[in-house]
């Protein structure tokens, strides 16, 4: 799908640049600033807001199936949404038999990792992994702890993105962190796989689960 999107004309999220295209519908996440949605609606253009995912599939707000369905409903194809959600849940239940309990550390070129309270953490848990990072929220890589303990799996995300040059002060550049990436148990996640709320997050979860088993 991403390959098909290559070459589609793009505009900056400026109200004027968008209005001149006379769109039938604006599908937006955060581009254009917090007032953009209200502005387009006032100009008579319906706006479909892409929600914020906070969990893989629970009863709470912000689950991926609920986001898929709300997007499908907003685009006028509820039945396609239902089909995607059914497939998503089928793949999810297939994973539930594969709880390995392996520990995993999430790493990015910017040298950050995450504990509980993030979608990445939820994805790792769903894949049957334990998060190596015990403290909640986004944090710098625990270099000192890595000197004593090793996670079973390294989840390396965004390392394929060319524009994302490594920060010269990033903890990911430190020899202790680099050594982790050289190991055999590295699951490389494409940055786009973790885009909040997409059904393709299942691709990432499956890759994580596979990494845990190996």
């Amino acid at each position, binding site marked *: 799908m991403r390959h098909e999107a290559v070459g589609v004309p793009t505009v900056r999220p400026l109200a004027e640049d968008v209005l001149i295209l006379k769109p039938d519908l604006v599908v937006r996440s955060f581009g254009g600033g917090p007032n953009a949605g209200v502005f387009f609606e006032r100009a008579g253009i319906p706006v479909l807001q892409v929600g914020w995912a906070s969990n893989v599939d629970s009863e709470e707000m912000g689950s991926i199936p609920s986001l898929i369905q709300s997007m499908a409903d907003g685009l006028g194809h509820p039945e396609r949404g239902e089909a995607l959600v059914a497939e998503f849940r089928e793949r999810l239940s297939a994973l539930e038999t594969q709880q390995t309990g392996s520990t995993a550390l999430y790493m990015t*070129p*910017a*040298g950050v990792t995450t504990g509980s309270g993030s979608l990445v953490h939820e994805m790792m848990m769903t894949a049957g992994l334990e998060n190596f990072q015990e403290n909640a929220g986004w944090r710098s890589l*625990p*270099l*000192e*702890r890595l*000197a*004593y303990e090793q996670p079973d799996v390294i989840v390396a995300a965004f390392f394929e993105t060319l*524009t*994302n*040059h490594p*920060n*010269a*002060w*990033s*903890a990911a*550049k*430190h*020899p*202790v962190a680099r050594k982790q990436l050289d190991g055999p148990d590295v699951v490389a996640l494409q940055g786009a796989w973790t885009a909040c709320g997409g059904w393709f997050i299942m691709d990432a979860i499956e890759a994580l689960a596979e990494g845990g088993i190996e």
Partner: protein
Amino acid sequence: MSVARWLTPGLALACVVAIFAACLLGSTPLPPDRVFAAFLGGADAGDRLVVWTIRFPRALAAFLVGAALGLSGAALQGLLRNPLAEPGVLGVSATASLAATFSLYYGLVAFSPWILPLAAITGALAATALLALAAIRTRSVVTLILIGVGLSSFAGALMSLLLNIAPNPFSLSDMISWMLGSVANRSFDEIILALPFLIAGSAILLATRRGLSALTLGEEAASGVGLNLRNQRIFTVLGAGLATGASVALAGAIGFVGIVAPLLVRPFVNHDPARSLIPSALLAGLILVIADIGVRIIPTTNELKLGVVAALLGAPVFVWIAMQRRAAYD
């Protein structure tokens, strides 16, 4: 005089103690005996890894950067006979930082890891050369400082331009580190790349220090006692450019430490620039090691940048010196 005699050994000892103290701090609690054992190659592998690859390189980087800036500051102050001359104030650090960011931003670093220190040093040399040229043309210290401030602002403006067109938040965060200065996550890899230039710059500055003493007599009198003014300027500029550039390659732009250290040292060495070089380097190194300990202890959500703390301590001193001098130059 006894203070003067013990100044250098005392500062050297204080630096060793501060670096050891910095190695005691970190997310893993390590008591002094384990840190000591790790230094000597004993203890377990984890302790050695923490001390030798994480804590010691960081503390050493802070010391080396401080020492390079203190030495460059003291030498530039001797050459320009102005206590406000310093790589940060004169725009040398900002220009070096800009050149380093430029080389990273446009991917030049991909060709060789040496490109980064070389870019920082080229930036620093270009700025110091420009300042030396200006120093020849004008005898006014105020004009020279203003040229430095202008240079610093111009480098800052170009840096802001790069920030403005940064492709993503990660690049933005990287560039901010170049502007604010930090030794977080430094390892021996970066130290080894900067060290040859740092040693070369320091050696040049120390080898030509006698000329700085002669310059305290004034340029004509210094020429009269046989000082080759042209060579003195060239070597001081070259040495300060190499040392400052190397420090920027290691830690980004850190200002004001090059002013504060020589200011504190000068009264103990009879205001002799030549004798102030080594104690200034040691004191500036000590200040940055202690400031970096502060950065790690202060419980902020995001770790403070070392350059921010250095500027918070140093900028008031800069204003104080400037106000002391006002009467003499108005």
